[in-house]
Every structure is written in C-alpha cells, then in structure tokens.
C-alpha cells in the first residue's frame, strides 16, 4: 500500500468532483454508504476490490451514492473517455509506473548507507522523468472530451515545462554520465574484499567463449542469477563507499541531487495517480463487456420520484461469466411510471429472479456513483441509500429464530428508508409457512407503498403481485424451447398461476402420472 495524502483526494477540480460542483456537494448525512453485506449481495464487491486494495481511500467513494447530478455527469464523462482503450492506456500505464516508483522510493528512504541511498534515488529520478515524459508524449495527441481529463493533461503539460522539472532532468543526466565513466574492480580472496580501479585485466568470460565455443551448435539458455536483486545490503553499500572515496567529485554531485530533489513526485502527478484508480479497473471490465457484445449505458439521472426504467439490463456477474465461459446473458427491461414504485417478481425457480433483482440494484448504485451501467439504456432516479435484504444461509436452527431475525432486519430497514431510497427484497419469508408469507408480505408491501421507496420484491407468493396501484407484476417465464434453457426472460404481465408449474413438472418427469408409472410394481 502506498501512503498518500488522503485529504487531497476528491478535492473539487480533480477527477472526482467538478470545480463548480462544490456548492451542491452532498453532506455525509444526506446519503448512506453501502454495507459490506449489500456490496456482496449486489456482487459489486469483486468489481471494486482490486482498486480498493491498492487505493483504500476509494472505499467510501465506491460505497456512497452521490446526490448531485452535476458531479455524476462529470464522472460519467471521464468514465466514457476512459472507455476508449487508446485514452485509458496512457493513464493506466502512468498509475502502474508511479505506484511502483512510490514503493521504490519508500524502500530507498530506508537505506542506511548514504552512497547507496543516493544511488537508488538517482535511479528513481531517472525512472520518474521517464514515466512523466512517456505519459506526456502518449497523451498529447489523444483526443479528450471529458473536462476532468483535459484538466489533468493541461496540468502535466505545465509541469514538464516548469523550471524545477527541467533542472531535475538536466542534473540527473549529468550525474549519470559522470558515474557511468567509472569502472571499478572487486577482488574476493577468502574473507577479504578489495575495491580498485579497472586497469587492463582481461575479460575471462570472453576467453571461455573463445575456448569452448567450438562445441556450440545452438544458443544456450541463459543461466540467470537466482539471488534477488542486490541492494540494501551492507556489503554492496561498503563496496560503493570505497568506490565513492576513490571518485569524490562525481559522488558529491550525486549527494547534492538527492538533497535538492525532494519530494521527487510532483503533487500534480501524485493526485492524478491517487484518483484515477476509481475509474480504471471498473472501466477495463466494462470495456471487456462491450467487446463481448454486451450493452453498456451512461444513464440519465432524474429526480427520485420521476418516471424511470431500463432497457436490456443484465447482472454484471452473469456478464462477466459470459466473458470467461460463454454463459448466455438474458437482459430484461423494466419501467416505473408514477404512481408505480414496486416491482413484484414471481415465477419459475432457478435463475432469473435473483439476477433481475441484483441487476436492478447494481443499476441504481453504479449510476449514483457516476459509473456506467450494464444495460442498453437507462433513466435512473437519484437515491439516498440502497438497502438489500437477501435470504441468509445462517446457522439459525429454528424456523422461529430465522423469522425473528428476518423481521428484525426488516424493521431496521424500514426505519432507515425514505421515499428517496431503493430497497431490494429477495425471497423474503421463504422459510416460513405460505400463510405467514402471504400475511407478512402484504403488510410489508403496504408499508413500502406508504413510504414511497423504489422496491424490487422477489417472492413465491403470487397474490402479492396482484395488489395493483403502485405494484407492477413481473414474471419469470420458462423458455419455450426443449430442453428448457437455464435462463429465463422476465416480463411485465400478470402471474402464471399453476399451469406453468405443471408444465415444468411434466418436462422433468415429475408429474403425478410419471411418478405413478415409475413407482408402479
């Protein structure tokens, strides 16, 4: 982990907040970050984890919905820019290179011997100049539209023509060329190590090549040193000290470079490298989805109580499995036109319903943090918090205990939710009796309706879908082909009743007739 001045992250005018957006920035009290459990329920934990591991300061930014449409638009533009691999490439390389350099500088600062520390610093300075120059060259001719990215490029352009950067460049080259003129020898004899100038001692390796080359018929596999890169050790430091003593002028100049070159990495570069990871890992995932022919959209944000909906929305986890093993992706659409607020999803087991609920929630959260969404198009209302209630595989032994736990969690959920919230309820009350599930479900739907939150409610109780008013019925149907596919399309229509269950039973040889024949004496 690289220690970074986390206080600088997310300042207005960076990559995460627009310069003029500061006035409408939400306070922490307005919104609530996603819990670990909700992140896991949504399957977003794995999307964010790589970035958070390297840049822990991004954790809250990924979890907390943003209530400011200007900021969301600002981020969407940057994300859209980085969706182009030609744009993303230089930024990705910059982050990777500077991170490696930061780790190296940390290690360098701990080297106790001055000559070795200075020498490492020179190498780091050379690398830093190289990395900045590479980025500057690469980004100069790339077409950038996002205001945030253009600002970043302009800052780097200003940096490289600045007096400090140019002086660093010149002095680094001069010190290097002085050091490169020094050839020294190390003689090892028993426990004695002797350092001297190289005179005319012949190259023994060349002699070996000349003598044994006659047997050679092919290029040999190189034998590489297995020892890890030497460096911070005492012996190397003492050897270098002796070399330095034999060449005082060159090494004095090296020391000066070290003392005057701190800090090496300019804040302009450091800030960029701290904020970019918010987009880079996520956008590489969306690029791959796009390359696999799956739609990716930058949603339009509207007020929390306006009409909203999505076309061809799909679960990110399923999309990613398609990339790895070609799994079929079924995309679904939905709409909520006022006064509709609640989608009740019923229908066939095994697939579709949970995925649909997860996609609904992903769509809202990703839209609210300014990232693209897995859908063809979407209009999304802003929200203040997103709560999930998925069935838990807990070690709860009694059904009563389980129901009690469920109700406690739902109570807490209702208390926190507002009319601007998004609630996802998956297979709620599935462990209780049908009668309990029907009664509790209806009560609960009434309270959600009264609250006015946007809800997806996945349930096996079909009556709940026929409430009308704010409730929209969505049904997971069986695909008509034979054998049935594992994936189901979810459509807006009244629930199926029992016909669908009978058909499934027949197809799997589990109808009453089939079972009778099978068990006939």
């Amino acid at each position: 982990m690289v220690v970074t001045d986390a206080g600088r992250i997310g300042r207005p005018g960076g990559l995460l907040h627009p310069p003029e957006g500061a006035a409408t920035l939400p306070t922490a009290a307005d919104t609530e970050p996603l819990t670990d459990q909700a992140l896991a329920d949504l399957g977003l934990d794995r999307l964010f984890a790589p970035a958070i591991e390297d840049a822990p300061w991004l954790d809250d930014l990924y979890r907390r919905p943003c209530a400011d449409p200007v900021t969301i638009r600002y981020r969407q533009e940057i994300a859209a820019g980085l969706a182009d691999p030609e744009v993303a490439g230089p930024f990705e390389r910059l982050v990777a290179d500077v991170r490696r350099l930061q780790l190296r500088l940390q290690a360098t600062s701990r080297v106790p011997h001055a000559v070795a520390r200075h020498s490492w610093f020179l190498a780091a300075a050379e690398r830093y100049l190289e990395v900045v120059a590479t980025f500057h060259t690469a980004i100069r001719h790339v077409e950038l539209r996002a205001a945030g990215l253009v600002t970043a490029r302009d800052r780097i352009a200003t940096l490289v023509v600045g007096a400090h950067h140019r002086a660093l460049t010149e002095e680094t080259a001069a010190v290097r060329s002085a050091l490169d003129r020094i050839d020294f020898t190390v003689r090892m004899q028993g426990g004695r190590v002797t350092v001297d100038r190289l005179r005319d001692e012949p190259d023994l390796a060349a002699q070996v090549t000349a003598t044994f080359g006659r047997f050679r018929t092919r290029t040999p596999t190189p034998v590489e040193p297995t020892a890890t890169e030497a460096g911070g050790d005492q012996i190397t430091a003492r050897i270098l000290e002796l070399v330095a003593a034999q060449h005082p002028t060159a090494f004095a100049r090296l020391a000066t470079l070290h003392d005057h070159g701190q800090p090496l990495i300019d804040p302009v570069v450091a800030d960029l490298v701290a904020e970019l990871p918010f987009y880079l890992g996520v956008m590489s995932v969306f690029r791959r989805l796009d390359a696999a022919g799956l739609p990716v959209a930058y949603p339009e944000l509207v007020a929390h109580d306006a009409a909203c909906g999505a076309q061809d929305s799909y679960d990110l986890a399923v999309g990613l499995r398609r990339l790895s093993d070609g799994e079929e992706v079924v995309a679904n659409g939905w709409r909520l036109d006022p006064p509709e607020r609640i989608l009740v999803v019923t229908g066939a087991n095994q697939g579709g319903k949970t995925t649909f609920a997860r996609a609904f929630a992903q769509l809202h959260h990703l839209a609210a943090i300014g990232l693209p969404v897995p859908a063809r198009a979407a209009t999304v209302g802003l929200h203040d918090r997103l709560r999930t209630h998925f069935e838990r595989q807990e070690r709860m032994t009694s059904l009563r205990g389980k129901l009690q736990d469920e109700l406690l969690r739902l109570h807490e959920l209702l208390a926190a939710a507002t009319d601007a919230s998004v609630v996802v309820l998956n297979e709620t009350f599935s462990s209780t009796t049908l009668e309990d599930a029907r009664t509790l479900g209806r009560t609960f739907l009434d309270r959600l309706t009264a609250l006015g939150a946007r809800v997806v409610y996945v349930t096996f109780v079909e009556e709940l879908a026929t409430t009308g008013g704010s409730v929209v019925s969505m049904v997971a149907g069986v695909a008509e082909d034979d054998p049935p596919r594992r994936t189901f399309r979810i459509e807006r229509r009244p629930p199926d009743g029992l016909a669908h269950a009978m058909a499934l039973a027949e197809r799997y040889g589990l109808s009453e007739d089939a079972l009778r024949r099978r068990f006939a004496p």
Partner: protein
Amino acid sequence: MKVGLLHADDDLVLDGAAELSEHQQDLVADLGLDLLLEAMAAGDDHVHGVCTHVLLHGLEDAEVVTRRQGVVADALAHPEAVAAMYAAIGSGLETARRSAAGLYRESPEPVVRRSVERLRVLLDVLRRLRGQARRVQRSVRSRPWQAFVEQLVTVVDEAADNEMESLLEELTFPRGMLLSARVGRGATGVNHVLRRPRAQGWLSRSVDRSGDSFELPERDDEAVAALGAWRERALGPVATELSGAADDLEAFLRRLRDELAFLLGAIHLADRLSGAGLDTCFPEVVGGHDPRTSPPRWSGRGLYDPALALRIGAAVVPGDLDADGAALVVVTGANQGGKSTLLRAIGATQVLAQAGLFVPARALRLELRPRVYAHFGREEDRGLTRGRLEEELARMQRIAERIRAGDLLLANESFASTNEAEGSALAHGLFTALADAGVRVVVVTHLYEFARRLREAGRDDTLFLRARREEDGSRPFRLEPGAPEPTSYGRDLYLDIFGGDPDVERRRPGPRPRG
C-alpha cells in the same frame, strides 16, 4: 559438431521414438521385426530403441541409401572400434549425468562448478574417441566415416585439449575471483565482468596489495549472500557459456551414441545371420521417380524371411522373386505353401533395405518406398463375425488415410472375416484402387472370386503367384507364377488335422484356415 554418419545433413533425431504408432506396431508384429530387433539389440535396450526407430523411418532417396550402405559396411569391417566408442560414450555420459543432477534452474555459481566437472568428464570421452578414431583413420573407406574421423582428430587436438584443461582449472578459482563493474542504476552495480587477475611478476605467489579493502564480517550469512550476488552476476555469462558447451558436447555424444547404436545393431544382426550360414547382400536400390510412371522393380535371388531364419537357422529355404513391372502382386494357392513367409520376406527386405542395411538375399534389386504398411488378419477378437470385419475395416481405414503413392501395402488374408462374395468385392475395389493410385500392393488371399475377377480384367501390372502343391501332396516352399485356382488346399489340411469336412464348417460364421 556433427556426427553425420547415418544422415548427411541432420544427425539422427530420436524424438518420439519410444512411442510406436498403431501401424508401426502392426508392422513390427506382422513382419516379425521384433525378432530382428532382438537380434540387433543383443540385450541392450538403447540399441533396441534406436534400431526400432531407424528401421521404422526408412530412407526415401536411393543415393542416401547407397551412402548409408557404405557407412554400414565400414562398421561391419571395424566392429571392435564401433563397440569401443559406444561403450566409452555410455560410461562417460553416466558419470556426467551424475554431475549434472539438479542442474535445472540453479544459479550461476553451482552451474559453473558442475559444468567444469561435466566438461572434464566429456573431454575425457572425447579423448578416448580420438584414440579409436586414430586406429581406424586409414582403413575406413566411406566418405562419411572419413569425415567423422577427421573431425574427431582435428576439432580437439592436443593443444586445444591442454588449453581447455588449464582454463577449467582456472575456473575453480584457486586464488580468488576478480570482477569488474559499474555503479549502474541503483546501488547494485551493473556490467559485471569476470576478469583474469594481472600477472604478479616474478613473485607470482605474492598478493596484489593495490586498492582499498575490508574484511568480511565473521559468521555473517547476509554478507556472504550479498557478496555471492556480486559473484553470480559476473559468473552468469560464464555459466551460460560453459553449461551451453557441456550441453552441446553432451548432445553431440548422445547423437553419436545413437548412431553407433544402430551400427552396433547391424553388426549383431550380421553376426547372427552369417553364424547361421545364411547369405546377405547390400541391395541395389532404385527410386526417386514418380511411382505412377516408373515401372515397379523388385527381383531377387535367394530371398528368405529373416525372422524365420533367426528362429530355425539354416533350415530356411530361400526363394526367388521376379516381380519387376508388377504394381499388384496376388499370391494364392495351397496352405502351408509359404505364402505368408514370402510376404514377410518381402516386407522385411524392404524395411532393411530402406534403413541402408544388408538384406536377407543373395542378390536383390528393388525400388524405395517411403512407407511400408501391413494389414494382416488378426488371430484375436475371434468373437462376432460382424465385429471382426469392423475391426479389419477400421484398421484398413487408418491405413488408407495415411498411405500415399509409392508406399508398399502388404495384405495377408484381408477381409477373410466375411463371406467370399462380400470379401471379394471389398478386396477388389480397394486393392485395384490403391494400385491405380501408385501404391505397390502384395496380397495373400483365399478369396478366389477376387483373384478371378482380377485375372479376367487382364491388367498388365498384376502378377499372380501360386503356392504350388506337388501332385503327391508334398509341399515345397515354392511360389511360381500361376493363375488362381478355385480350390485352395486348405480342405486337405483341414481334413488331415480335424478329420472333418471344412465345407460344412465354413457355413458357420467364423475365420477361415490360413496359410
């Protein structure tokens, strides 16, 4: 360095030699090559493996065959030298293998140490080979042997030998190690180069006192490792070079050992056959022409089945073959009339000739065939009739997928597992098609209907041979040109042995008696 005995351009490559393909296994079993290979190996598994590979990868160019015949003839004339070289390499490689153990992915310092040991052993082998080479230098006649001997004598002469030994001694660093470097990026040093310390004047044992030095702290493992890292960098290129040289020298010796193994096998086989009082000769091979336009050539005197000869010795009766111009040879006639023996003799002769070896005959002229395939009726799977035919067809399908114009197919009682009408139709279509495609085909068959149709077609590229039965019922192992006859003599034998009428038995599904 190159061996160049068996091939002019490339040395013998034994990749995949351990795995015989299905048709190669068939060929070995059907032609009795396993007996030949045992005789060649004389108990040495390595010789067995190499000979198997060489026999099954025949040469395809007449000039190359003639070249190798010369190499084999030289080997037969110098059996002690071949055996001594083979043995010297074998024991040397064994010793070198022990020093090489665990070499994989080691760091430069142990690699240098082990490579010095390996090179010392391998140079010693080279020295012994040079001794043998000197002994035969004036008497080998073939150009490849002369070039090979010349190489052994000149590539490492005494002067080079001494230079190598003293350099190997220097690389044990009896008086410490000197290397040069630059500061480089970071504090590791770069461009490490191993150096030869300066001569130290008349007091050569005195220590060079120039420069600034420090003593390594006592019992400091970290310091030892750090200094080791400096040495490793300087030793990297030397380790690469030395282990490369040792690998290449060892590879050369391995290839030489493989080629010598084949020649040793030839010596063993020649000893066995001449020990049994049988003639062998180097055949005259022709080839390199388009098989569809050049007339087939195969004629010889005193041919015999070498596998049978190894089993029963001088009791084997040689025969003659005059099949020039025949693309399709059909052998019919009495059981026990020597039909299968003839087929095996033809096949083995072809295989041996194409390996550049001598052949079991007094005189022989034949054309080269890129590949030899055998399709023999199988004794096993004597289960359902249907299953046997399918097995046969499957085997024939695999052959037909691979066989090319100019190849040789030896078919022994193919399609005997079905009735005569079906079998004949199958055989006729298949064998004439192959013959027309330029494949040389020898068919031993009981399928009279097939033979008769072929005869009536009046093809001038077809030779019919018949196992003759003398009127008194005694059967010499003689095959003569002759039209197929409707009855084979199996009925006689069947009556003799089983005392029942085979015509009655034949109505049941099952295999026919075979010759």
